């Protein structure tokens, strides 16, 4: 029989086989094509031959190079360097750098090394970035916004202090600046007041997003930034960490004392940057470094107790390590430093003591210079968020190039600011904007919600001169406000050019009626384009209305295959059609499955739809046995059957018929594997020797699945598996086989793993085997791990072995030294701990000698990045609660939302010190990221006496801002879903679950009314959340009603009373016959609430057969009362009764 396929696709899949594992359906397609098509078969053979041969063509590169190649090259390189670096003194050796793992890491040189002269020219004034103020091209929009915000904030905050004898007075303040008074009886950090007077000895802390300028004398100023901690002294300023930019008049000196020595600036401008001493080196010395850069004038660096000193002229930049003298910066490091200084705002356009004026000036500047759309968009967005009406008013209606993002930002900003022209401008956007802008503008006008805005929307909707899309957007916006729709949305959707409009009306919206009929007409209107019909079908599906079924059935015969497929798939949507498949729909789908004129993909869709709609076994079996059907279609039917309950004779019959199907042998394992409980093991073992690696892989996979088969494995079978595992060409297949052996013959598996270890070549496979060996406790594996650790194997394997030993608490002598050495070497280059080897080593040390790694892991968590979450989990599992709290205090100030999220997650998962509840609550109130807020609230709920709902309500009430109220409402909904999920989770302890349940009881699921009160009625996603929450709650209740614990059943039944739902009726009725009387009482109340009168005559005190008879009567009454429940529920109830 000819097999229709696309040779190009098959060839692509064949080529991809060597790159990835094909999916089962792809493997089936390839197998069939190779079996039936000569061209594909030839390509298959040639491809494999070429891929096998390619490594053979590899030559030893070193042998290609003649003797002395390296020497000649080195001579040429030396000559090349001499040409390009003419300024270097011939007698001065190149600066030695013994440790530089990253762009910002600087050399450490011995204390006795002489100061060396810089050899790299640095710009005296950093060049202005070409791509606008603080934005980088091609960056995501939110980053552009964040970047502009950072620049604006940097120019915003500042302090001007006046020098007086013995004290320093400040004329104004703003920003995140803290001070700790030396004169206070109890020194504590406080926010700098508006008119501060600072004295010698006071410490100042300037947060990462702020800049403070101190005027130490009339002609000396110091600008502090970048998380800076400084102390005022009589004749200097001590900077513990952060950046200080010192500006002194000509002839004046200004000293900055740092942990790495003193920098004395002589006139001009000098930048001093001191790292935070997060990390500690192996010998316990503080890490970090000092960078000094003289932009103008000169400076000197010296260190007490050391002869090392350096003189820096304009343009020089030096760095001092924790124990080293000054060495020069590379050009790239200098460029980074210059960027930092520029970011701090060393040269703000105009210094202003009024921060609002400074910010407004910066925003206005960004709007005037419209060269960079991202910057203009960000400025408009910020101005809108901060409510700068004048600036928003001055923003242009459109940029030179049409920019949808800008228009959307402008519309959003106009909503937030009360300008006289905002409604007229939004109306212009509504009428003239493109599809997405129109929708935004309409929603914006709706959000304003003023009578004039609604009139404008209504007028726009009614005005037939306007574009149909604009009218439709206006109509939907009015309808969303629960007002009568000004125009017929369905008619407008038909007129609108864009098909997406139809999808819009498919969404359930209050105030719109008649959409279903309009969509039904559209879906079957042959005069419309196929795309329109497709959208209409999608919209009908989105309506979730079972009465649309006839239309969808008609659409399955649409001339366009896409429409047919969409309609077919919609018929299988369980959310739409909860009821049993009626005859017409079933006939349509069965016809599609058997229709030879359509392609295999479409038939698969039809089969999927059939399988989803409760297709009975009796109807599935003939499809599986029908060899004329594509194998993939039969596989779907088989999978559906696999989920169903079938008896042994049916399985035997099926397997026999499938086995008889040769020569399609290559696909047999795929089908047979679906019947995992009864897969014929011999067949699969035979497949392991197949030439096709895909078949071997599939067979290995299904063998591991077939373990559910209780028949014990014979020794012969185990040996057969052992024999093929190393021969299997696919790594995945070998893994499956190892897994199978370790489950069916654990003792033999250990022997095999240890035996095969020396023969394994791939690092990843060795690592995987090493992990597998962890399951086998005992001296034998301990000895093996120690051997690997002390061998010269890859660091990954050694650190993995060390971790294994540490996890067993059997590190043994010398292991700490070995693993410390590995860790020190690895972490030198992998400070973010992104590599598995480093993380393994860190975890091992954490278990054996935590003090060596805790600080490193902590800095990884606080720096964000790929390993932060992982490092945090390891750290949290090892740290006591007070230490975790210390982490929290640092993390809440992080500018990186992902850092805050990860740390909040740690507290949720690992618990924290109850004494820090106040901190968490504060953090909760200031946190902007909703998911982090959810985690924090969840953590709060773990502490007794912290009623979560109260916290949320307080939050919702305390913020007048519309957006924040909305956030609070959404938080509440998301939080509820999260809590329900957590309460169901078995990973929590019983006590934690009990607390969560208590927290849940204090929360009421926000109803539609409260949602609307919170201002989220226009938000479609809120409705989705609502339904999700409700379904989750029902799920939880159902689980509780079926609990084996009587108290839980009673509690769940009581809770069902508060959440009446007909789908719970069958279970509640069953509980009327419960042995525990409290359960019966609770169930009785719940049933009465859902279906009053159903339990008439039921006596709660009855026992035995009498009670069962009463319950049967209740059931009978239910099944004969269609008004109570759906047919499905009645059916479930009847089934229940039979059981």
């Amino acid at each position, binding site marked *: 029989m000819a097999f229709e396929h696309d040779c190009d696709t098959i060839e692509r899949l064949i080529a991809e086989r060597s790159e990835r594992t094909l999916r089962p359906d792809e493997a089936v397609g390839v197998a069939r094509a190779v079996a039936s098509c000569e061209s594909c078969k030839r390509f298959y053979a040639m491809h494999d031959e*070429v891929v096998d*041969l390619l490594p053979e063509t590899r030559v030893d590169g070193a042998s290609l190079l003649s003797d002395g190649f390296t020497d000649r*090259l080195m001579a040429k390189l030396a000559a090349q360097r001499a040409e390009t670096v003419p300024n270097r003194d011939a007698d001065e050796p190149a600066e030695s750098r013994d440790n530089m793992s990253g762009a910002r890491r600087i050399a450490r040189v011995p204390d006795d090394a002489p100061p060396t002269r810089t050899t790299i020219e640095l710009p005296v004034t950093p060049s202005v970035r070409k791509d606008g103020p603080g934005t980088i091209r091609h960056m995501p929009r939110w980053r552009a916004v964040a970047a502009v915000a950072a620049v604006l904030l940097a120019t915003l905050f500042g302090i001007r202090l006046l020098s007086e004898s013995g004290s320093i007075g400040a004329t104004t303040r703003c920003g995140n600046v803290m001070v700790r008074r030396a004169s206070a009886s109890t020194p504590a950090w406080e926010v700098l007041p508006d008119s501060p007077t600072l004295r010698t000895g006071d410490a100042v802390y300037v947060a990462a997003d702020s800049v403070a300028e101190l005027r130490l004398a009339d002609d000396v100023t110091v600008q502090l930034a970048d998380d800076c901690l400084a102390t005022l002294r009589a004749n200097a300023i001590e900077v513990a960490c952060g950046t200080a930019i010192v500006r002194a008049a000509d002839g004046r000196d200004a000293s900055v004392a740092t942990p790495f020595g003193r920098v004395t600036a002589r006139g001009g401008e000098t930048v001093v940057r001191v790292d935070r001493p997060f990390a500690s080196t192996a010998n316990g010395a503080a890490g970090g470094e000092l960078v000094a850069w003289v932009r103008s004038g000169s400076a000197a660096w010296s260190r007490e107790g050391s002869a090392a000193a350096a003189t820096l002229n304009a343009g020089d930049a030096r760095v001092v390590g924790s124990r080293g003298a000054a060495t020069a910066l590379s050009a790239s490091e200098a460029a980074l430093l210059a960027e930092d200084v520029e970011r701090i705002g060393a040269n703000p356009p105009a210094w202003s003591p009024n921060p609002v004026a400074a910010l407004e000036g910066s925003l206005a500047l960004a709007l005037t210079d419209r060269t960079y759309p991202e910057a203009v968009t960000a400025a408009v967005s910020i101005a809108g968020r901060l409510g700068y009406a004048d600036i928003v008013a001055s923003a242009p209606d459109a940029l030179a190039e049409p920019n949808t993002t800008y228009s959307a930002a402008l519309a959003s900003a106009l909503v937030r600011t009360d300008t006289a022209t905002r409604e007229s401008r939004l109306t212009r956007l509504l009428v003239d904007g493109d599809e997405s802008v129109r929708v935004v503008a309409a929603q914006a006008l709706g959000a304003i919600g003023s009578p004039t805005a609604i009139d404008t929307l209504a007028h726009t909707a009614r005005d037939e001169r306007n574009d149909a899309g604009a009218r439709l957007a206006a109509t939907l916006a009015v309808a969303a406000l629960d007002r009568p729709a000004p125009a017929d949305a369905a008619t407008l959707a038909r007129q609108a050019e864009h098909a997406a409009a139809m999808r819009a009306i498919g969404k359930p919206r209050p105030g719109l009626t008649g959409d279903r009929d309009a969509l039904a007409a559209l879906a079957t209107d042959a005069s419309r384009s196929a795309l329109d019909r497709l959208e209409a079908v999608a919209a009908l599906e989105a309506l979730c209305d079972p009465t649309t079924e006839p239309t969808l059935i008609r659409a399955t015969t649409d001339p366009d295959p896409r429409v047919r497929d969409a309609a077919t798939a919609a018929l299988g949507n369980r959310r739409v059609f909860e009821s049993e498949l009626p005859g017409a729909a079933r006939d349509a789908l069965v016809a599609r499955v058997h229709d030879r004129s359509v392609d295999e993909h479409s038939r698969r869709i039809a089969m999927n739809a059939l399988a989803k709609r409760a297709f009975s076994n009796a109807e599935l079996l003939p499809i599986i046995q029908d060899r004329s059907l594509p194998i993939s279609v039969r596989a779907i039917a088989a999978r559906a059957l696999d989920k169903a309950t079938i008896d042994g004779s049916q399985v035997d019959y099926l397997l026999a018929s499938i086995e008889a199907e040769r020569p399609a042998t290559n696909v047999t394992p795929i089908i047979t594997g679906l019947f995992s409980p009864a897969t014929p093991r011999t067949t699969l073992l035979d497949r392991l020797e197949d030439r096709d690696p895909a078949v071997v892989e599939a067979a290995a996979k299904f063998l591991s699945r077939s373990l559910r088969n209780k028949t014990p494995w014979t020794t012969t079978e185990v040996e057969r598996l052992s024999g093929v595992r190393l021969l299997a060409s696919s790594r995945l297949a070998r893994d499956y086989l190892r897994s199978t052996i370790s489950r069916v013959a654990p003792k033999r598996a250990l022997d095999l793993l240890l035996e095969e270890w020396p023969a394994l070549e791939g690092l990843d496979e060795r690592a995987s085997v090493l992990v597998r060996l962890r399951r086998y406790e005992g001296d034998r594996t301990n000895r093996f791990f120690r051997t690997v650790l002390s061998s010269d194997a890859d660091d990954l394997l050694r650190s993995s072995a060390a971790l294994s030993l540490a996890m067993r608490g059997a590190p043994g002598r010398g292991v700490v030294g070995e693993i410390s050495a590995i860790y020190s070497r690895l972490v030198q280059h992998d400070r973010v701990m992104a590599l598995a080897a480093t993380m393994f080593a860190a975890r091992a040390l954490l278990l054996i000698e935590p003090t060596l790694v805790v600080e490193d892991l902590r800095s990884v968590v606080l720096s964000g990045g790929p390993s932060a979450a992982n490092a945090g989990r390891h750290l949290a599992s090892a740290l006591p609660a007070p230490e975790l709290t210390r982490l929290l205090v640092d993390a809440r100030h992080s500018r990186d939302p992902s850092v805050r999220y990860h740390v909040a997650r740690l507290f949720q998962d690992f618990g924290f010190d109850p004494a820090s509840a106040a901190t968490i609550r504060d953090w909760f109130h200031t946190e902007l990221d909703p998911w982090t807020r959810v985690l924090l609230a969840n953590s709060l709920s773990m502490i007794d006496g912290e009623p979560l709902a109260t916290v949320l309500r307080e939050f919702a009430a305390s913020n007048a801002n519309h957006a924040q109220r909305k956030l609070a409402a959404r938080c509440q909904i998301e939080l509820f879903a999260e809590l329900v999920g957590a309460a169901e989770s078995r990973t929590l302890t019983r006590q934690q679950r009990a607390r969560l349940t208590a927290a849940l009881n204090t929360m009421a699921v926000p109803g539609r009314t409260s949602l609307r009160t919170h201002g989220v009625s226009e938000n479609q996603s809120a409705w989705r959340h609502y339904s999700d929450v409700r379904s989750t709650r029902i799920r939880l209740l159902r689980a509780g009603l079926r609990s084996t614990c009587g108290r839980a059943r009673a509690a769940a039944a009581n809770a069902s009373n508060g959440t009446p739902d007909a789908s719970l009726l069958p279970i509640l009725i069953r509980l009327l016959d419960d042995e525990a009387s409290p359960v019966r009482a609770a169930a009785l109340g719940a049933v009465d609430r859902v279906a009053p009168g159903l339990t008439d005559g039921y006596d709660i005190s009855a026992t035995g057969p009498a009670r069962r008879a009463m319950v049967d009567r209740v059931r009978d009454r239910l099944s004969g009362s269609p008004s109570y429940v759906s047919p499905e529920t009645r059916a479930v109830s009847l089934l229940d009764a039979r059981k």
Partner: protein
Amino acid sequence: MTKWLWAAKLTQDEGILIQQALAGEELATRALVDRYSGQLASYLKGQTADDFVVEDLTQETFLRAFASLEKFDASRSFRGWLFGIANHVYVDYLRKRREKPAQSLSNDESLLTRIRGGSPDEAELDETQDKLSCLREALSQMNPEYQAVISARYLQEMPRHEIADLLGISEYNVKMRLYRAKKELVDRYERLRR
């Protein structure tokens, strides 16, 4: 091999060597040359059959690389960066060769073997050697883009993301280019084998 394993292998001590080479340390420069000269020559051999040309291109690649070492981004793979330079060097070489087409074929053994046809050596070749000879020839007939991607994937065993870095294209494009390259290679190989 997974990304992190590649990263683990390649970043070992590399950062130190690069920074020391930047500072003019001869030993570090030599260590980098020793580490990568063989791989580089092997990579270039996948694109040109002439051993002398391979050596010249290897040398030129290193000269260019060390001249612009400061531009190297530490977050990228050094090997990928180096091979990227080798690609440019090879393309420049091809351009120059087109301008001066008179080339000696004396060193192109596989091509000579094919041209000679019934040479006595051929009789001694076993089946595998003959296949390899055809495959090398098929490779040499392909355009440089395809040669580069095949060489990187199958001779240097680079992961896709590193090839993407090397060729300056997305991982998806690497996948598609690899497929097209293999398809062309299979076609050419098949024709030569007939």
